[in-house]
């Protein structure tokens, strides 16, 4: 009888102790805000393209934090999905084709300036204010600020916006990874030649 009593008392004491400890920790190590949203947002490509169905990256980050799928971001593609899966401890899934396909090469918008009628529609569409111009003035894209989200293409009444691949020059060229010896022999016996990386 007494041994049962002792067990009950001990367990109750332990429960109290750990309860107090947890309570203390909850107060002492309280984190303000919801950093997971910011962490998710940091992993998203910030193109603000809205292809995920949310009006920007932050809203999608909030949605993911609330349990939405992580595979709705075509600009981020596989690497973003992997990073998100890593962060959230879930299985990576293939990109949801419903939201579009991952671009093979990064692009920027380019306005064919002779054709621009200065309607400002693209300026209103641009989520990052990367298009300069005023009403009836020719518009132009600040290439460095353009995220390549494609949002300006559709509103243009005269279809004067092209998405062109980001040019490779000396500043962003780099060596590609060598081909492993095994694959080389498997294909042919010639050694790897240099190749560029966009």
């Amino acid at each position, binding site marked *: 009888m007494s041994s049962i009593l002792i067990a009950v008392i001990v367990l109750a004491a332990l429960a109290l102790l750990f309860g107090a400890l947890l309570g203390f920790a909850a107060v002492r190590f309280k984190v303000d805000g919801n950093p997971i949203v910011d962490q998710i947002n940091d992993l998203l490509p910030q193109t603000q393209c809205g292809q995920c169905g949310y009006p920007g990256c932050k809203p999608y980050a909030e949605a993911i934090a609330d349990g939405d799928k992580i595979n709705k971001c075509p600009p981020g593609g596989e690497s973003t999905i992997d990073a998100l899966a890593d962060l959230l401890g879930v299985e990576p899934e293939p990109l949801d084709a419903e939201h579009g396909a991952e671009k093979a090469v990064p692009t920027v918008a380019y306005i064919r300036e002779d054709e621009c009628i200065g309607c400002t529609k693209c300026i209103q569409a641009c989520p990052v204010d990367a298009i300069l111009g005023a009403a009836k003035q020719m518009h132009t894209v600040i290439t460095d600020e353009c995220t390549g989200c494609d949002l300006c293409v559709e509103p243009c009444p005269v279809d004067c916006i092209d998405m062109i691949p980001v040019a490779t020059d*000396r500043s962003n060229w780099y060596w590609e*990874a*060598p081909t492993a010896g095994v694959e080389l022999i498997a294909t042919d016996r010639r050694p790897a030649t240099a190749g560029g990386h966009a």
Partner: protein
Amino acid sequence: MTHLIQLHEFDGGIHPPENKHQSTGRAIRTAPLPDELVLPLHQHIGAPSRPVVSAGDSVLKGQVIAEPHGFVSAPLHAPTSGVVAAIEDRQVPHASGMSELCIVITPDGKDEWQPHQSLCAELGVDDCDDISAADLVRRIRECGIAGMGGAGFPTSVKLSVGDNRIDTLILNGAECEPYITADDMLMRERARDIVRGAQILLQITAAERCLIGVEDNKPEAIAALEDALLALHEEHHIDVVTIPTKYPSGGEKQLIQILTGREVPSGGIPAHIGIVCQNVGTAAAIADAVDIGRPLISRITTVTGDAVSDKGNWDVLLGTPVSHLLAVSGYQPQKRERVIMGGPMMGFALPTTALPVVKTTNCLLAPTEKELPTNKPSMACIRCGLCAQACPAELLPQQLYWFSKAEEFDKAEQHNIFDCIECGACSYVCPSEIPLVQYYRFAKGAIREEQAAQEKAEQARERFEARIARQEREQAEKEAKRKARAAAAEAAQKAKKAAPAAATDAPAKTAATSSPELEKLQKQLDGAQAALTKTKEKLEAAKADPAMAEKVPVFEAALTKTQDKIKTLAKDIAAAKKAAKAAPAAADDKGDPNSPERLKKKWEMAQGRLDTAIKRLEQAEAEGSDKVEALRDGLEKQKVRVEEARQAWEAATIGQPAANAAAQGTPEPANDDLKRKILAQKDRVDKARERLSMAQAEGLDTVEALTTALSKQQDKLKQLEQQADAAGEV
């Protein structure tokens, strides 16, 4: 003269076969003039220079043909007299094999110098020791000198050490790469120039001593330098230090470690630890620049390898095609043709021999397969650790390899991949012949790309958030205005109730119609003015470009036409304004986009933007960013806009005060809301009409859509007017 200097040792390093004797047998020869010189604008680290000549210009030897663009940049000079044949994209000697802008000069064979003089003569001083460091650095910059050891960092930038006090100047004569003997031969034949360069550099840096580090496999060079020092009759602190032969002792960081025992902090520059390091070739070029005013237009290049029969060193004009130099050296193309610019350890294989010699070309190595076999297919890494023993940066190359291969870039970064100097010692010793350096280059590039993407994403996020915040603010403002208007309307209603007979509709109507009229005219004027500036620009461009010459009259005609149009419009506006003045305006001018307040605000905002644009431009110029050009254009445009905004405001202030005064006394009419709607609708109709006419003028395929839109807007307007009439009758 040699003092005992405590030498230190760097970790790792290798002893590849030197193969230097092949090319030291003959004195330096001057390479014959080629048919064409191709000068890439980007021969140095930093921003490419900008051409200041155009195709067809005659240039003299030593004449500036391209100017530096930004701080980290260097000018370019004509290596010989001749005619600029073209300024066009040509393939440049870079590992990527890309094409970049080059100035192509056809030599006239006269080799005629432009006048040049020593810095002393230019400044008119008697004693060259009196010249200030700033003047010396300026001369070095003007002469286009960039590090000649291989990296090509603009020397003047390297000499601008800021607040760092320099105690030691190091001249790098180690030349540790196998095969290359350009510096060796230079030290043998032009030791005096090197010593003179050292003196100038000491004068600039105010360093206490100068150490010339030379590997012990170059006894002739060491002897020549010692002789040159003995020949100096004044007191000096220059020492030639013999260092043991070990690759890569010629690496800047390694040489500093050998000579001083100090380590350049990761991510830092030698100046941070009180050291400036220059190549001996650079020192000789500096002596030429300061003492005779000779810009950097040629350099010593070793041509060696078993595929050439006549190995040796050449004094080559920059821009000389590699094929030309190989041809005069008796080049026999091999079965698997390979020409390496630089040495076998760090040089890069050229994609074609039609590339020019540039400021950094210290060697052209044309090996046979027998002497430098191409790498066999790599085997798996067995983590033998030979690479770690060879690494001069004390990295763990095999770990970096695994991380790079698996694209685990964060781990590669954590293992300090960016401290890798790509010397190739690890690949050299690797028993599995893994192209380690290429893996590191790939990883570094990918990491940089990732960082750039991240930076861009961060920037995009900020801009997006700023935009959202702005939209919210605007929404809030609108809301506040709406409320204020509602309140005002209520007050007016009350006032109307109090004095129903006092208000009359007629003048208000006149004012309401005259204001949009004015606005429309004003807009047309704006458009015409914009067109005018555009036409002017086009005209300028056409005048500048001979190919466009026949278009000049067309543009001139267009210009006159536009100017006429502006005059007419200005007259119209004046008339409209008179009318507005006469009519007692009753409309609330808050909604009028052309009210003086608004216009003033517009002007101020434009001015603000202009200020920011100027600031950004200055910043970009300071950083030598390649955005400068775009920013400058933007600035010009912004200036025009500011001017326009100011004019608009002035025009408006002249016309408006009376109207304002009149408006204040008049209470608002009851069907105010409806009227405002009509006004807005009229505005829309006008806009639609303009868009349509523009589309028609330009023959765009949107004409139809725009026509429909216009008729719809007109219908809506009619409806509103009918409503207003009905309301007025009530």
